[in-house]
Structure formats: C-alpha cells, structure tokens
C-alpha cells in the first residue's frame, strides 16, 4: 500500500521490518530486489528515465489491483530512477499475506507488471563509451501476459 519512485537507494531490511511490524495476521512475506548486474560486454552502468506523475499513478493502480486479487496485509513498491551502477538496487517489491502462495503470486505479478507496463526506460552505457536504449524483451511480455489470463 506504499509506492515510492525515487533517486535514492533503499534499505530492504528496514522496509521488510516496517511492513510486518506488529501485524500478527502475516504468515508469509515475499520480497523481490532487482539489481543492476554486470553483463560482461557492456560496462553495466545505466540511467533509468521515467514519466513523473504517470509512474506513481500506475504503480498505485497496479498495487490496488494486487490487493483486489490476493488477500494481502501489506505491500510496498519502490522503483529508482537516475544513474545506477552494477550491484546497485533498482527495484523492490514486498508483499505480505496470511498465506505464502498469495505472498509469492502477488509479488511476482507486481514485478512482471513493472517490467513491461510501468513507464521506465533503461539507457545502458557500453564499453566503447556509447549508450543504447535497452530493447523490450518478449520474455517479459510473456511473463506479464500470464497474469492477464486470470483477469476477471
């Protein structure tokens, strides 16, 4: 139920602790942290651009949809923008539910959605000093599409 789009890093442990503190209805809590990895060929550093205003609106809407589809006690989405280097955290999704299946499914639903539907774009720095925009991946579209099948 919390959405943050920010340039700053985040503290996964502190976020998990804050989300679950004092709520004894939570039986399972799933977190996914996306990190910048070094792909070998490229330098790995990248700049994330987003659409301020629309991003926050869409994250709030998909978070609300997750709460409709699963019995969630709490959720959090943090997505960073700006320049990031290998090892830097990009995105954090946390969902907490009485049931572990709901925690897992909703967390994956949110990250699959973020990959294809949230207005973010990655500009990678390459080893020769150039830059290139990351192309959308069909595998990410498929991952997001599997959730649409179940839509009411």
């Amino acid at each position, binding site marked *: 139920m919390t959405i943050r789009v920010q340039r700053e890093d985040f503290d996964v442990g502190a976020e998990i602790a804050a989300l679950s503190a004092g709520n004894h209805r939570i039986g399972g809590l799933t977190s996914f942290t*996306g990190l910048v990895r070094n792909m070998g060929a490229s330098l790995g550093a990248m700049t*994330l*651009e*987003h*659409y301020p*205003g*629309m991003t926050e*609106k869409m994250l709030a809407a998909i978070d609300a949809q997750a709460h409709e589809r699963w019995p969630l006690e709490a959720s959090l989405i943090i*997505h960073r923008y700006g320049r990031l280097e290998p090892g830097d955290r*990009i*995105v954090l999704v946390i969902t907490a539910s009485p049931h572990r299946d709901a925690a897992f499914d909703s967390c994956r639903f949110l*990250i699959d959605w*973020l*990959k*294809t*539907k*949230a*207005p*973010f*774009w*990655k*500009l990678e720095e390459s080893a020769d000093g150039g830059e290139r*925009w*990351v*192309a*959308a*991946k069909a595998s*990410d579209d498929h991952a997001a599409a599997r959730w649409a099948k179940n839509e009411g």
Partner: protein
Amino acid sequence: MKILYFAGLRQRIGVGEEEIEPPPEIVDVAALIGWLRRRGPDFAEALADTSAIRIAVDQEFAAMDTSLAGAREVALFPPMTGG
C-alpha cells in the same frame, strides 16, 4: 496541448516536452501522430513505426483510436523496460 517524448523517442526528436496547437481536425491519437510526422524529418523518422510507440493521454495508456477531446497531456514513448 502538452506533448511529452521519452527515452529513445525524445533523443531522436531532440525535444522532451513542447506545447502544440494541432488544428481542430486532429481528433484522435492516430491523427495526432500523422500531424506530428509532417513537422519534419526527425519527427517522420521517429514516429514511422507505430508498433514501437506507446501512447498515454492524460497519463492513461491510450490506443491509436483514443479521442483527444479534452486532452491536456499526450505522451509518446517506446516500449517500457523497467523493473
């Protein structure tokens, strides 16, 4: 009407944000993209392949036939690569 361009589209067009006043016959997204293409070769090239363009009207995803009636902000951008 405010137009926003993001990522590769912004780079190719060379503009991130502009105020435009399209003529009254520009009633939907398809007509707007056609009109923008005629503004110059950078526009024509960047907007040539509509399958590679995503559109938002007033910060909601839109289609080629989405009406522009009352629209204040239209954004054009490539497929998203977040997460």
